[in-house]
């Protein structure tokens, strides 16, 4: 394994290199060489990048010192059956209606909990591990396309270490009517370790699907998830992420999407629980007249830290982007929204609008919001709005004047504030599920 350490190695990366070396024997012969090649290459990049510093724009709002000082090494495969705790987590997070379901426990497929029967012809849904043998060209293309730069060191770490994940491959013209749910659970067995999962959705021309990914767990772990979305011309995809990790858990999610001509992506990210949660979305609009709707919300309390980042790069003409993000922070929580929209030269008639609205409740909570427009074409319509404020006092008084106790009235207004963003989720089943989880969360944070 010395080949990979010919590079300069940042000290905080060293334990991960050593862990990679220890696992290499187990990996040998179980994985195709091309994959091992990507893993080694990515590990070398991670060794070179190390952890991002707070001077890096994309990481300035998160405090990574705890993670940097105490390595959380990739957790190995867990033995034993499915615990009652996992079943309880699943019951909480599942849509509870007919859906194609793939469940990952501690970062690996749990076939007994998954329901993949009855997929329509032209749809392949399965674990990443299976896709590597059954869909090698597709998976390889994904790795090839992913550019690893210093701002994305954990995507490199993910390539080096991911154990499993999922792939959804839809042939052109195929419509997946039922929702697809990918549920990531953590049993607590990975205590102090990290879980690296990799997802890939490839939607062929005019294909259509809705996918919800839910994340929950127990204990102290670091989930590092990367998902790539590839929408061919005219494809329509909804992707919802519901992040309700354990109170002590770290969660980094990286979503990279490419849109073909006339393709339409609708994304919603809901951050509800976890110690430190970061979700970054990067969309490249490569085909003309693509449409991209990125919405989301975070609801933070206690000492939670969360960061939602979006980058939309319009490289083709006639594209449309709509963003609505809502943030709520109470207690000592800190949230941040960073949204960048770039219009490349020649990408005329782009129409982009971004809105970031935030509620900061209490003297110790805070939210940063940072919109950025970078426009290199002259015939475009781009705008953004950002606001940070408190609950509407007049509305609060109105509710109280009807006998609703102060605490309950505040919860109603917070829920209503977040609801406005959730209403933008186009799939009713997923919208209702999110609203239910938000109500639960607000009710449980009751003092």
């Amino acid at each position, binding site marked *: 394994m010395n080949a990979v350490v010919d590079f300069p190695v940042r000290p905080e990366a060293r334990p991960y290199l050593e862990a990679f070396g220890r696992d290499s024997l187990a990996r040998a012969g179980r994985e195709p060489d091309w994959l091992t090649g990507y893993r080694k290459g990515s590990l070398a990049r991670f060794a070179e990048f190390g952890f991002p510093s707070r001077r890096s724009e994309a990481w300035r709002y998160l405090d990574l010192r705890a993670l940097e000082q105490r390595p959380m090494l990739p957790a190995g495969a867990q033995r034993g059956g499915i615990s009652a705790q996992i079943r309880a987590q699943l019951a909480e997070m599942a849509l509870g209606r007919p859906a194609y379901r793939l469940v990952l426990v501690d970062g690996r497929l749990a076939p007994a909990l998954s329901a993949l029967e009855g997929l329509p012809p032209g749809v392949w849904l399965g674990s990443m591990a299976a896709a590597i043998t059954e869909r090698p060209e597709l998976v390889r293309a994904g790795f090839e396309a992913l550019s690893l730069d210093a701002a994305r060191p954990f995507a490199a770490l993910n390539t080096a270490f991911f154990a499993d994940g999922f792939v959804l491959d839809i042939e052109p013209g195929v419509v997946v009517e039922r929702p697809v749910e990918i549920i990531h659970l953590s049993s607590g067995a990975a205590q102090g370790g990290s879980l690296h999962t990799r997802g890939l959705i490839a939607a062929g021309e005019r294909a259509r699907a809705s996918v919800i990914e839910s994340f929950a767990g127990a204990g102290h772990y670091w989930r590092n998830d990367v998902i790539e979305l590839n929408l061919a011309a005219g494809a329509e995809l909804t992707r919802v992420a519901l992040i309700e990790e354990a109170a002590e858990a770290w969660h980094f999610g990286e979503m990279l999407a490419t849109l073909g001509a006339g393709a339409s992506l609708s994304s919603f990210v809901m951050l509800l629980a976890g110690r430190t949660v970061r979700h970054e979305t990067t969309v490249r609009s490569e085909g003309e007249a693509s449409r991209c709707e990125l919405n989301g919300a975070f609801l933070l309390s206690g000492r939670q830290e969360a960061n939602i980042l979006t980058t939309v790069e319009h490289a083709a003409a006639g594209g449309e982007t709509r963003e609505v993000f809502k943030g709520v922070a109470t207690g000592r929580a800190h949230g941040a929204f960073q949204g960048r929209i770039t219009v490349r030269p020649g990408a005329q008639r782009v129409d982009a609008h971004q809105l970031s609205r935030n509620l900061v409740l209490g003297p110790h909570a805070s939210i940063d919001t940072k919109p950025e427009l970078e426009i290199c074409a002259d015939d475009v319509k781009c705008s953004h709005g950002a606001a940070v404020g408190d609950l*509407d*006092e*007049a*509305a609060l*008084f*109105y*509710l*109280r*004047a*009807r*006998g*609703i*106790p*102060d605490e*309950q*009235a505040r919860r*109603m*207004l917070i*829920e*209503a*504030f977040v*609801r*406005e963003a959730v209403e933008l989720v186009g799939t009713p089943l997923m919208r209702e599920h999110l609203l239910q989880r938000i109500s639960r969360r607000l009710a449980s944070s009751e003092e």
Partner: protein
Amino acid sequence: MLEVTNLHARLNDGREILRGIDLSVKAGEVHAIMGPNGSGKSTLAAVLAGREGYEVSEGSVSYLGRDLLVMPADERAREGLFLAFQYPIEIPGVNNMYFLRTALNAQRRHRGEPELDAGQFLRIVRARLKLLDIGEDLLQRAVNVGFSGGEKKRNEILQMAMLEPRLAILDETDSGLDIDALKLVARGVNEQRSPERAIVVITHYQRLLDYVEPDRVHVLQRGRIIQSGDKALAVELERRGYGAAEEAA
């Protein structure tokens, strides 16, 4: 039921708006408080309902034998005090039906009664809607959002009819209404008249009093009640104006 004694109140900026109000309202009575703009009518309503932003510098208010002024606004409401807002507040994202049920259940919980589920609530609210001739679509919208002026006032009356308060204060509920809406508001008020309930109607015009007959009429001027009488006083005010009332006082 309500005893207001020498009530003085000022805004946070120090301006004194109420300068010694005395008012006694008994169960079963309907009182009208009339007065020109700026006389302190809405401030009186706000202070009684417990809105923040006012300081009571002198005097007392007793409601059902308790000191009203020490009770938070939500407790006052649960104890049966209802304020129909002059300008009802729009609350995006809160469904009107959910709002009404939450309010009613908060009050029922307070009285030790079982909470109503969605089905039970719907039966009750439908009966009230019919009585007040209000369309059911009002329930499906966000509280007051996009409501016309008339719809907002009807929604206030609907809330009163659902919450069945002991003491209802209607703050210029008649302002800006056409004659049909006015009659509907009057019907709602008259439906609520009962020996156990008191109603205080705050109004600028005598018009509403053609449909809601008050037991007592008070004239508020510059933060004081300068004249009180029976319903004939309202007619006189309409004819001679508030200036004459002030001269007479």
